[in-house]
């Protein structure tokens, strides 16, 4: 490989041809500050925060998009660079609503960090550019007054998710990141995935805060408030309290929820096992009885909305199973209500989700059981952390608590739902046992694991070849469906998760301040989930004793009429 030799801040470094100055500096442990730059996603060189001086070159050059050349001499922090960078940050800050103290991003804001490090202590100017007012959908709040026009959200929305509901508009001081005619995101094909929130360097994009709804339910003595927690939450919540990425904080989380005042603390993992019972049955039924194939998973509400907008010819391929969140609500307000002898009208179901699209899913018309809303309030991992902080608990020192029965038991198959490939693997574990009639011991389907955007595998079970595909990120899903449409690919079963990496990287998860660590964080959160799976005594959904009890006592068997009434749904063209 061609190597290029250059000097950065007086230090020699040799890197391969085509490396940027930013990357070369990293080799020397020099961190050149960046704002708009996200590797491979938003390499636009527009914010100019990363400018450096190159000997013999006029002006300063952006380190993020300038490639190294032989003999280059770079200064990343000399007087000119420091002063210029400070000027640029001051210019950005001047049009940014500086409400840091009340901003949800306080202390997790990249601009705040950059300005602090660059010593921007004063904003000289008086005027503020006119920006559109705050607008909120059911899931996402946009605050143009805080937008720094880096364009990262545009890139994620268009290029990763293939959604493209926001773009730059206007120019000069009116330049904005916006929807057409400043539409609310609920008026267009936004899928509520919240990836724009995760990528936003500041507080211009946030989840719609629903913690007040939860607090008032808790404070209402007439309500029986139960909470369910999705798998991916437990391996990320600790980050909000300074714990290492990927830490499993399930026990502390359960204790915290109990102290917050929930009457019962249940587990979405329970209903994830239930989902596998139903979806596994559905898959076998479709294969054996000539049903519509491929069967495509339906756990991810961002993906569902994407499909409803853009791939309507695939709506019949979607599993009719409700997502674990909704199955939980349906069971809580029927089976649990009956068993606990509580009026379902008095039961208030709260979900803690790694996801912003779940807020939308919960209010879909279809998501009702016996006339009751299945889920009454959805908060994200971040919102739960906020509630815990507000209540003054020292989270890291809490004792380990355990989930309540009869909706609290779960298996290793359920917890891996939170990582891409997890639903597939969980389903395979159950389907394989059903097809072979055995209790198979070799249940680690490594071929479906991994963080790549699209993966394919073929597994053979009892002489039956099952062709599988796993995609994460709706952009990857779109590419795969295009191939199927064109007749270039076909499968029996496809798992789709709207977000890259699956729910562990959902739009409601803790913000990763250093975006260059995103991949690593995803990896470690996923490892956290697989670690829990390994440590579980029961690792197959159909062996969950509470699930067995549920069928024996209430639903009779998977796919029964009653099951269909409670746990299955349909989709609409949008």
């Amino acid at each position, binding site marked *: 490989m061609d190597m290029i030799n250059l000097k950065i801040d007086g230090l020699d470094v040799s890197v391969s041809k085509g490396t940027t100055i930013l990357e070369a500096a990293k080799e020397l442990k020099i961190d050149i500050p960046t704002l708009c730059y996200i590797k491979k996603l938003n390499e636009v060189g527009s914010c100019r925060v990363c400018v450096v001086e190159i000997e013999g070159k006029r002006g300063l050059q952006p380190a993020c998009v300038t490639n190294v050349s032989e003999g280059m001499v770079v200064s990343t922090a000399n007087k000119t660079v420091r002063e210029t960078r400070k000027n640029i940050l001051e210019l950005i800050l001047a049009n940014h609503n500086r409400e840091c103290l009340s901003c949800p991003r306080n202390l997790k804001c990249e601009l705040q960090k950059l300005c602090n490090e660059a010593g921007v202590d004063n904003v000289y100017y008086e005027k503020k550019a006119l920006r559109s007012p705050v607008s909120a959908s059911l899931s996402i709040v946009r605050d143009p007054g805080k937008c720094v026009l880096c364009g990262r959200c545009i890139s994620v929305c*268009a290029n990763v998710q293939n959604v*493209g*509901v*926001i*773009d*730059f*508009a*206007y*120019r000069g001081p*009116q330049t904005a990141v*916006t*929807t*057409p*005619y400043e539409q609310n995101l609920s008026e*267009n094909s936004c899928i509520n995935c919240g990836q724009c929130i995760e990528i936003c360097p500041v507080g211009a994009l946030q989840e719609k805060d629903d913690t007040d709804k939860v607090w008032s339910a808790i404070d209402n003595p007439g309500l029986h408030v139960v909470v369910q927690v999705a798998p991916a939450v437990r391996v990320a919540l600790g980050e909000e309290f300074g714990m290492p990425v990927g830490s499993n904080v399930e026990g502390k989380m359960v204790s915290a929820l109990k102290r917050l005042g929930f009457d019962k603390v249940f587990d979405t993992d329970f209903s994830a096992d239930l989902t596998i019972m139903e979806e596994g049955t559905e898959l076998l039924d479709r294969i054996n009885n000539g049903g519509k194939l491929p069967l495509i998973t339906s756990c991810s509400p961002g993906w569902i909305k994407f499909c409803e907008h853009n791939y309507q010819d695939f709506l019949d391929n979607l599993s009719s199973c409700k997502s674990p969140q909704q199955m939980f609500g349906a069971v809580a307000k029927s089976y649990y209500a009956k068993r606990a002898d509580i009026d379902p009208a008095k039961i208030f179901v709260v979900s803690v989700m790694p996801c912003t699209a779940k807020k939308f899913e919960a209010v879909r018309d279809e998501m009702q059981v016996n006339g009751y809303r299945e889920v009454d309030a959805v908060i994200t991992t971040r919102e739960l952390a906020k509630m815990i902080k507000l209540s003054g608990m020292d989270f890291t020192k809490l004792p380990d608590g355990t989930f309540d029965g009869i909706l609290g038991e779960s298996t290793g198959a359920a917890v891996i739902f939170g990582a891409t490939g997890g639903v597939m693997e969980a389903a395979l574990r159950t389907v394989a046992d059903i097809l072979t009639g055995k209790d198979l011991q070799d249940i680690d389907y490594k071929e479906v694991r991994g963080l790549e955007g699209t993966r394919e595998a073929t597994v053979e079970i009892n002489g039956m070849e099952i062709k599988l595909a796993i995609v994460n990120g709706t952009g990857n899903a779109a590419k795969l469906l295009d191939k199927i449409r064109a007749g270039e690919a076909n499968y029996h079963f496809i798992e789709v998760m709207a977000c890259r990496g699956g729910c562990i990287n959902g739009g409601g998860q803790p913000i990763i301040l250093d975006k260059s660590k995103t991949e690593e964080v995803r990896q470690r959160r996923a490892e956290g989930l697989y670690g829990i799976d390994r440590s579980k005594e029961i690792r197959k959904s159909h062996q969950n004793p509470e699930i067995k009890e549920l069928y024996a006592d209430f639903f009779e068997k998977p796919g029964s009429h009653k099951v269909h009434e409670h746990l299955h749904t349909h989709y609409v063209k949008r």
Partner: protein
Amino acid sequence: MGTSVCNCKSEKFKQLELIIAEHKDQPGSLIPVMHEAQELFGYLPLEVQTVIAEGLDVPLADVYGVATFYSKFTLQAKGQYQINVCLGTACYVKGAQLIIEKVADMLKIKVGETSQDGLFSLDATRCIGACGLAPVMTVNEKVYGQLTVDKVEKIMKEYLDTVGRDKNANA
């Protein structure tokens, strides 16, 4: 009345479909289509942008981005007489500011506005390359140069008289 407007509108949308069909397979066709659409409708309302987006298979957000980026595209209906006064530097040093103030005063509208009867709209424009005639203004495609406050008063009076006469004729 309502139906005739409606028919005329659907007629225009039919024409828009034709414009789109004509350009669809050419690369970079978005802006030419938007030019023609604006010529047809006088401006680019949301429904027109939506048809263009769907017809050319471009996200609506992109169409809106283009519509707002370029100053020639407008989201609001303009007057029958579109008056643009050049405020480029060559006109500016020749007193263009006084000219635009005079026009605004006579039409009783602010710069950037359209009169309520939909007859006149007034905008300040960047240099239109008629610096040899500075200060200049244009009314639709007609260029008026070497303006003075007196001269512009006379010109505007004529326009006002014309529309006044038209009104009488109609009545």
